[in-house]
């Protein structure tokens, strides 16, 4: 399967060249079954320049210490839990770390309210089960079981969305590193290299709090929203350009100025005050994450490419902004109107955006 033929290639496919270059330049000791040393994983994630001059693009923009703690955790016995509000690159970071450590980021258990134990442990191929009776061949391995056998990193997305009893089936796996199959009287024992990276968000409603027994099996790293406006602009413009390429949008990547406007609006509404700190703002109910800012920009690019001039203007951003900010019709509309009148209108160079947004609100 080539990179071009899929909608969204996995990290290890998209960045295969970089991964190979980092691994080639890496001369430090590697933990068992790791594709590269922990230091090299950090370099791959944060970007940099290799001794031979190859430039590694940054995958995560943020505090180096957080990434070091995250990677350092995988070297120990503990599993890693990435916590943060939605859109702080938890899954993104876990995918890239898994790709760098095991060369495979696709051993994923997606946590939902409907996730069952067989997705965490194992299921049965019923045709075979009935025909041949219980046997190892009749077992359908979960990603966790595969990861244990192969000594690879398993990713668990949205751990806290799973029902509590399913979450708890991780306890034995993480502390004993074995997965018993009572039907066959055997157990799958994990080989070195197996570990789990889970993500959870602490903002959304409808999550099942983790039991403290499970929480004890994890080292927790809290991912904060981007620290500065410049960081966030960098993330949004880089990701928007990448996505634009992947989705083959006919539009130009947006000018930095447009990205900066979107990021500033998001940051101001998220923090509840303007950049200069002079004006107090109502906070909308949504989380207004960086991920949403990226999607506002890409949807703007799509609109501009297909229906507009090909370059993003205020008109294309306005609809995306409205959709991102207004999650609750009554209170968020009020907050957005207030922001338009008190802040956007006052900024002379933002007149076009104000008009476009007003047209949208009607």
């Amino acid at each position: 399967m080539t990179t071009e033929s899929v909608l969204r290639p996995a990290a290890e496919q998209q960045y295969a060249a970089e991964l190979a270059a980092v691994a080639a330049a890496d001369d430090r000791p590697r933990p068992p079954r790791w594709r590269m040393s922990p230091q090299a994983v950090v370099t791959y994630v944060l970007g940099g320049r290799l001794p031979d001059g190859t430039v590694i693009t940054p995958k995560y923009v943020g505090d180096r210490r957080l990434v070091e703690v995250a990677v350092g955790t995988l070297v120990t016995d503990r599993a890693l839990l990435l916590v943060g509000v939605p859109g702080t690159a938890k899954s993104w970071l876990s995918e890239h770390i898994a790709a760098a450590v095991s060369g495979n980021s696709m051993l994923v258990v997606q946590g939902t309210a409907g996730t069952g134990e067989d997705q965490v442990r194992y299921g049965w191929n019923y045709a075979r089960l009935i025909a041949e009776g219980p046997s190892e061949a009749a077992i359908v391995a979960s990603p966790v079981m595969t990861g244990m056998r192969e000594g690879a990193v398993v990713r668990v997305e949205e751990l806290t969305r799973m029902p509590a009893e399913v979450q708890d089936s991780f306890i034995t796996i993480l502390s004993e590193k074995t997965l018993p199959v009572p039907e066959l009287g055997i157990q799958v024992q994990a080989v070195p290299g197996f570990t789990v990276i889970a993500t959870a968000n602490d903002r959304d409603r409808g999550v099942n709090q983790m039991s403290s027994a499970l929480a004890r099996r994890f080292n927790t790293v809290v991912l904060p929203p981007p620290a500065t406006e410049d960081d966030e602009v960098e993330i949004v413009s880089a990701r928007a350009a990448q996505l634009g390429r992947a989705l083959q949008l006919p539009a130009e990547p947006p000018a930095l100025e447009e990205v900066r406007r979107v990021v500033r609006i998001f940051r101001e509404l998220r923090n509840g005050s303007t950049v200069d700190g002079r004006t107090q703002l109502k906070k909308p109910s949504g989380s207004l994450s960086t991920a949403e800012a990226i999607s506002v920009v890409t949807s703007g690019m799509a609109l501009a490419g297909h229906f507009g001039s090909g370059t993003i203007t205020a008109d294309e951003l306005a609809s995306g902004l409205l959709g991102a900010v207004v999650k609750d019709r009554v209170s968020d509309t009020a907050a957005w109107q207030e922001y338009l009148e008190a802040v956007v209108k006052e900024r002379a160079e933002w007149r076009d955006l104000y008009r476009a947004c007003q047209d949208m609100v009607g």
Partner: protein
Amino acid sequence: MAREQPLPDRVTLLGIRHHGPGSARMVAAALEAVRPEVVLIEGPPEGDALLPHVPSLTPPVALLLHDEAEPARAAFWPFAEFSPEWRAMTWARVNGVPVRFFDLPAAASLDDPEPSDSDSADDVPKAAVDPLGTLAEAAGFDDPERWWEDVVEHHTDPRDLAEAVAEAMGALREEFADQVDARTLRREAAMRQNVRQALKDVEGSIAVVAGAWHVPALRTLPPASVDAAALKGLPRKKISGTWVPWSHGRLAASSGYGAGVASPGWYAHLWECAERGDAVPRWFAKACGVLRAEDLPGSTASAVEAVRLADALAAMRGRPSPGLSEVMEATLAVLCGGDATPLRLVHEQLVVGERLGEVGEDVPTSPLAADLARWQRRLRMPPSASVKPMRFDLRKDTDRERSKLLRRLEVLDVPWGTPDTTRTLGTFAEAWQLHWRPEFAVALAVAARHGTTVEAAAGTVLIARAAAATRVVDAAETLSQAVGCEIPEAVAASRQALDRCAAAATDALELLSALPDLATTVRYGSVRGTDPELLRVALHGLLARGAVGLPLACRGVDDDTAERAVRAVEGADDAVRLAADDEHRDTWQRALKSLVAMPDAHGLPTGRATRLLWETGALDSDEVATRLHRAVSLAAGATAFVAGFLRGSAALLTADPRLFAVVDEWLTGLSGADFAAALPLLRRAVGEFSPAERRMLGDRVKGSTAGGAVASGDWDEELAARLVGHVRDLLGAGAGAGTGAGTGRAGAGA
């Protein structure tokens, strides 16, 4: 030019990092090896006289030196258990070797415009303040002590360490040559002079313990005359001093002591664990202990994992063993579950590690400090570096003495306790937050000239304050302090001062604004052992004068003064309700009435006065409505009147049907044109309410007819009567004025 002579071989230069456990180990080892005949330590020579007291000290302690003529001009030289200077002093004491401080005399350094504690101040470059830390940073370490331990100490013969440091410093000083200021040069000249003196005095070897930064300057001796010239004309002063207990918190850079260390607790830990070599596991065991003490999870299994993560992080960063940053990151990720709140706990208790030193009884102190120490023992209130809440029942003698002591110290600018005003505990109880800060020692030294005991000194200060008071408010404040301190002479003096100021005062508002303070004093006076009658007379005097002047004071004034007037009226009204007798209550009511009747008084206080009178029943609702009508018919000052009337009463307005009815009737009774005229006023008056209050008010207006109906309608008379009776019992007999409203509310509630 002058010849420079190399320092003779018998002098061993030990360049140290202030408060660095690594340097402390080096000093201890080097002294043991060299066995010098005299030890010179960086510090002011005036401190020599206090060195014999070292055996009775428990660090952290500080040497406090101050100008005898001007005690506020003082400086501290703090030492912790792990300070190299302290190690040198202890070694010398054990081995019976004389110690001398050999820096610039405090007489000169205290006079310096710059902060005089060695090497502090923000503008001093980092290289000069912490040269070894700068080297560690250059080597890629963020914890200089770990760098020292792992890189310097483990890979160098301890005997050559000092030499290595000296060489490194020579290079560093060349690089930062422009950052050596005149003050440093002067200090180094003094150090060299003292080294010369020591060379003359003893035949054998000499050990010199000084900040690493100064080492290059001490390696060669220029002709003595050059240094003598540099030191010429330095001020001479009489300096006295003592040892004071110091705290880790004050050692930490976070409290603004420039040459301090950010993590004294971590350093103390490194110092204590250096011999066993189990610093990291022991640290996590302690951290788990701290967390468990607060009922947070902190299992041994987690500690094991934390050690592993810290080791992994150190390995990833290419460091031989985990430093403070790795340890803290592992604590956050493993022990605290990524939550910064428990981490703060670990930071406070372990990284800073609050500890207060102790000073033995034989250390000379001022009589005042000795008196304070006596009281602290007698009242069982040992000073503590962490904040400690205390509750006093003033009916008990010990508690009353304690409260007295804290208040007297407050007068002496030693705010050891801060009254906790967030909870009101009634007349007999007080809540305090106790927090001893080492710098109180300076304030005590300053206060020592006022008297030899806490009581005498506080009395002197209060009497002087009373004599200097020119405004009624100041005099009243002094009076209430004097009553709190229970010093009869001071009470008498401030009472006189109050009379004097009141007689001279022409501003009625000033007189009135002193009333609330005084009323509280009157209320608590009986507990405090002061004759309440004395205070009551003073209160009445002020009230009488203020009441007469009030109406005039509200006439033809600007908005700012009107604002003051409203506050004065409100405060005085509270005071009257709290502490006045019937006669004076009448006086006050008459004053309010004449204010209301005055046609050209400012609207704000008039409106307020109207409202107060209506609340006590002195004005009935019809009259109030008339007043409101009249106010609106006047264009000017109308807003102010309505605002003054409604100020701060949103909750009352929604809850009290009578008040609501008055405003409601007045509003509905307005003709169309009048209503239009009143609308902006009303909007502005209501604009002061919070959004929530406005919403409540809006709901009330929507269901306005319901209010009356409930009050008069269908509810259990008997039950309400029982409730009312019970509430009355609770409130006691003095609830007279509130009964009406109380019944109304009880009705609504039923």
